[in-house]
């Protein structure tokens, strides 16, 4: 009975196995990136970037159909171009960085939707916007796992500067080399968005990255604890979301993101670091 409920879907169906493997890879690579996004106060910028991926993915779709390598390549290029243009525009004009990014991502999103509508049909558009983790094929899985592996390798080598730059960018700018780390980080964000794209679509690609990280913030006292908690939550919600999707017959993307949403909702109340219910019991320890 429990076997049927929790294990059988993955044991019996290859597409469920692949979906689970994709979710595990997304959790391992994406959750630490999500932690950095949250700590840099860039959670919403990440969302804007996720939408910016769309026109590139759409062009990839026009050229290569629904094959992930074409979608991914287009997506990475578009995401980085939008991030760079937004940064350059704000430096050149003094416009606020978030305002500039908002302008560019809206243009990108609209252009992307237009391209997909002209070249494909509404099913294709739905696929690009919302993804479908149950349709992950062997090649897509290789790509997702590859991005996760690359992300973890780069993070292992650049963790300390990335954290230092998130914490005190002004200090890092003064001692040299703040900007380089920021660019490296943006590349990692876009890569992971593209990885999440196939499973969750452009609209929710950030779901498995940011929701676990925000939830983890309510449990962790250090960045390291936050990463461990975020990965654990992402793994659990990826697995749980797939099960719910399977048993209830609902789309996988929203099921996964909503499961992560439940984890966040619970953390808001019972999180040991600042959860609403815990907070009442504590004497505030911040002063002056």
């Amino acid at each position, binding site marked *: 009975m429990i076997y049927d409920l929790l294990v059988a879907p993955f044991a019996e169906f290859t597409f469920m196995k692949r979906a689970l493997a994709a979710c595990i890879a997304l959790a391992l690579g994406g959750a630490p990136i999500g932690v950095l996004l949250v*700590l840099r*106060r860039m959670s919403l910028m990440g969302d804007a970037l996720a939408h910016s991926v769309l026109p590139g993915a759409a062009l990839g779709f026009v050229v290569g159909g629904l094959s992930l390598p074409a979608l991914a390549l287009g997506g990475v290029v578009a995401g980085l171009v939008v991030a760079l243009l937004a940064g350059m525009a704000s430096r050149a004009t003094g416009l606020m960085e978030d305002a500039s990014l908002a302008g560019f991502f809206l243009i990108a999103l609209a252009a992307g939707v237009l391209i997909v509508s002209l070249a494909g049909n509404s099913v294709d558009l739905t696929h690009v916007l919302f993804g479908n983790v149950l349709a992950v094929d062997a090649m897509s899985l290789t790509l997702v796992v590859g991005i996760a592996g690359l992300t973890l390798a780069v993070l292992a*080598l*650049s963790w*300390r*500067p990335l*954290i*230092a730059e*998130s*914490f*005190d*960018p*002004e*200090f*890092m*700018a*003064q*001692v*040299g080399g703040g900007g380089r780390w920021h660019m490296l980080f943006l590349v990692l964000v876009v890569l992971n968005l593209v990885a999440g794209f196939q499973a969750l679509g452009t609209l929710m690609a950030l779901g498995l990255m940011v929701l676990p990280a925000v939830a983890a*913030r309510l449990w*962790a*006292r*250090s*960045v390291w*604890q*936050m990463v461990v908690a975020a990965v654990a939550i992402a793994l659990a919600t990826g697995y749980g979301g797939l099960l719910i999707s399977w048993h209830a017959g609902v789309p996988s993307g929203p099921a996964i993101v909503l499961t992560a949403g439940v984890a966040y909702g619970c953390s808001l109340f019972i999180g040991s*670091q600042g959860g609403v219910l815990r907070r009442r019991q504590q004497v505030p*320890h*911040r*002063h*002056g």
Partner: protein
Amino acid sequence: MTPAIDIQELTVSYDGADVLHRVSGAFPGGALCAVIGPNGSGKTTLLKTIAGLLMPKSGRIRLLGTATQRIAYMPQHAGFDRTFPIVVRDVVAMGLWPRGGRVRRLTGAQRDEIEAAIAAVGLTNVADLPIGALSGGQIRRVLFARAMLQDAAALLLDEPFANVDSDTTAFLVEIMRRWQQEGRIVVTVLHDFELAHKHFGWTMLLAHESVGCGPTASVLTSENLGRARDLCDRCAADRNFWAAA
């Protein structure tokens, strides 16, 4: 040769307006140096330009007689988020940055250096606490420990005594003295004339231009202060400054 920061004809502008206009002067390593002036006179701009965070429109800044060109700059308001989940020790450790320690594990010697810096500012018992648990004065000590680790030829401090109690101020002045005795140049933006007279042997009086630069007693004269007032219309609003002057 005694180390010194030498400034010649330095002009820095924001949006076309000169914040610093042809400032010349020097900060020698032989004394604690103060930069004094009313709000809006360009003190922070001067420090940031020396630190390399702002580009001058013209003029020259040179670091003379020092073994390294490293400069440590401590802003008035720490540019970090106090709710960030990071412990005191890790913030202090960032000071090692300019000398490596980016990617590889810290060596035993580096760890000892970090602990020594934490002990020197009296924070050993809170080294494992998150930064958010500290008071304003303790945060200031953290920044001092971090600056200490930078092993810089010159330390530029912007209003380090703002919102800090008198005991901590005395303690921080002691640390600055030690830096100076180690042969480092220490330049501090100050608001407080009494502190300047008491602890700082050298002063630059700033009002967009350098009104005077030299031994403190010879710079902070009523004549110079009168000139500063004439030079800087906008600065007239800083009533506290002129009252203290």
